[in-house]
């Protein structure tokens, strides 16, 4: 042991250094976010609770029941039931999402050619019953009204979930669903 090491031991140099560090931290600002009182700002494009986009023109949902979202869903939590209506149109009877199985990957939104489904910024929806977390069509539409009301939804959707229909619009001469 050299003299320097001995002196370091006698005067507790390392311990004093550690004490100085903890003392300096004592007067620094705590990083805690007191959750229910303060909330962390939501980052843009946050993937929260699901919602059905309400068409501002018709006031109804945009879904056509093609089933791409359900086919794409990795956790297979989307269930779609359709029937054939008058003149062979497809009617979406039930559209249900099991929120408890969802992994919030956002693939359903990406897959949808009509921009009919979205993930909102809302994330505080824990509940005591499973039924409350089983999303039906009405609940999904009201989610849109509650958390994406007004022009916020449109802007948010266009910015982060650019619907495929905008990029891959049908060309003039292509055959379309009959109306």
């Amino acid at each position, binding site marked *: 042991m050299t003299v320097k090491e001995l002196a370091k031991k006698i005067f507790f140099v390392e311990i004093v250094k550690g004490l100085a560090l903890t003392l300096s931290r*004592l007067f620094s600002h705590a990083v805690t976010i007191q959750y229910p009182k303060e909330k962390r700002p939501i980052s843009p494009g946050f993937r929260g609770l699901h919602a059905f986009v309400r068409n501002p023109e018709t006031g109804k949902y945009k879904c056509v029941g093609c089933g791409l979202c359900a086919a794409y869903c990795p956790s297979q939590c989307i269930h779609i039931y359709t029937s054939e209506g008058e003149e062979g149109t497809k009617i979406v009877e039930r559209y249900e999402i099991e929120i408890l199985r969802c992994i919030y990957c956002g693939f359903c939104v990406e897959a949808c050619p009509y921009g009919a489904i979205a993930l909102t910024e809302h994330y505080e929806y824990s509940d005591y019953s499973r039924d409350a977390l089983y999303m039906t069509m009405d609940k999904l539409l009201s989610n849109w009204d509650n958390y994406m009301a007004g022009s916020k939804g449109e802007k948010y959707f266009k910015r982060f979930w650019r619907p495929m229909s905008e990029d891959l619009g049908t060309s003039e001469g292509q055959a379309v669903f009959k109306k």
Partner: protein
Amino acid sequence: MNITGQEVIDFLIKVGIIIIKIAVVLGIALLHVAYATYFERKVIGHMQVRLGPMRVGPHGLLQPIADGIKLFFKEDILPANADKPVFYLAPVIFMASAMVNLSVIPFTKNFVIANLNVGLLFIFAIAGLGVYGIFISGWASNSKYSFIGGLRSSAQVISYEVAMGLSLVGVMVMAGSLNLTDIVKAQRDSPWGMFIIPQIVGFIVFTIAAVAETNRAPFDLPEAESELVAGYFVEYSGFRFALFFLGEYTAMLIISSIAAVCFLGGWTIPWYITKALPFLSHVPGIVWFLLKVYLFIFLYYWLRATLPRYRYDQLMAIGWKILIPVALANIVVTGLVKILL
């Protein structure tokens, strides 16, 4: 013998005053323990860049009360193979031995419950009794964790009591008394104002030994959470656990008070400070005393927030190979200086 009515009344008044003093000290000590836990959680929290308790009351001020009520209503569990009477007795011994020591601490000029002329020795004797509480609890719980915790604790407390006692001999030599009040008066009259200046070696040995003596981090091997779950009181729950908790924090208060009384000048402040800033002499003595005590308690928390736990062989090596020889050398030097000057 001739006992007059006047003498009986005088005696009763004396007893009454003592009982009132005991009630005051005990009440303040218990309140102190409750808020010492709050202070600790806040200090360590902020040192770890957290906030500590914040929810119960403004800034978590009612947290200790909530904790106390919770502990009081918890289930009292008795291990099936425990030695019942001894199991029940252990926390009482531990806590009582911590509480008894409060009686000889001079809080301010004329406020001491029992002005013993062997005050310092009394404190060591009673603090030594506290080990029985720890060891008995470890044995009676019939659990390997608490047994090892109890063994470690008794070995540690006994080894460090030697170092702590020797570190205070320098103070005794300088003050020429074991009475805590006289030690404070000797410091007031000395040219240094407080014994920490001539007895700095003794103070450092005392501080290290004090941390080990009260089983606090970084010498908290008896309750080493990562190895022994909770150490000697692992089988205790509810109010019996609270008694151990109270005992530990009261012991910290006692040791901090000894540090304040023997090294930092108790309720007095050095004459050169009052000479420089005369208005400070109007501050009541209890303020200085409490300031010094809380400074020392803060040091406990500060060390806990900074240092990791020592290994058992390191703990013993520090105690026997470093602290005791250093304390002995300190005694020799102090004695020589006292004789020669």
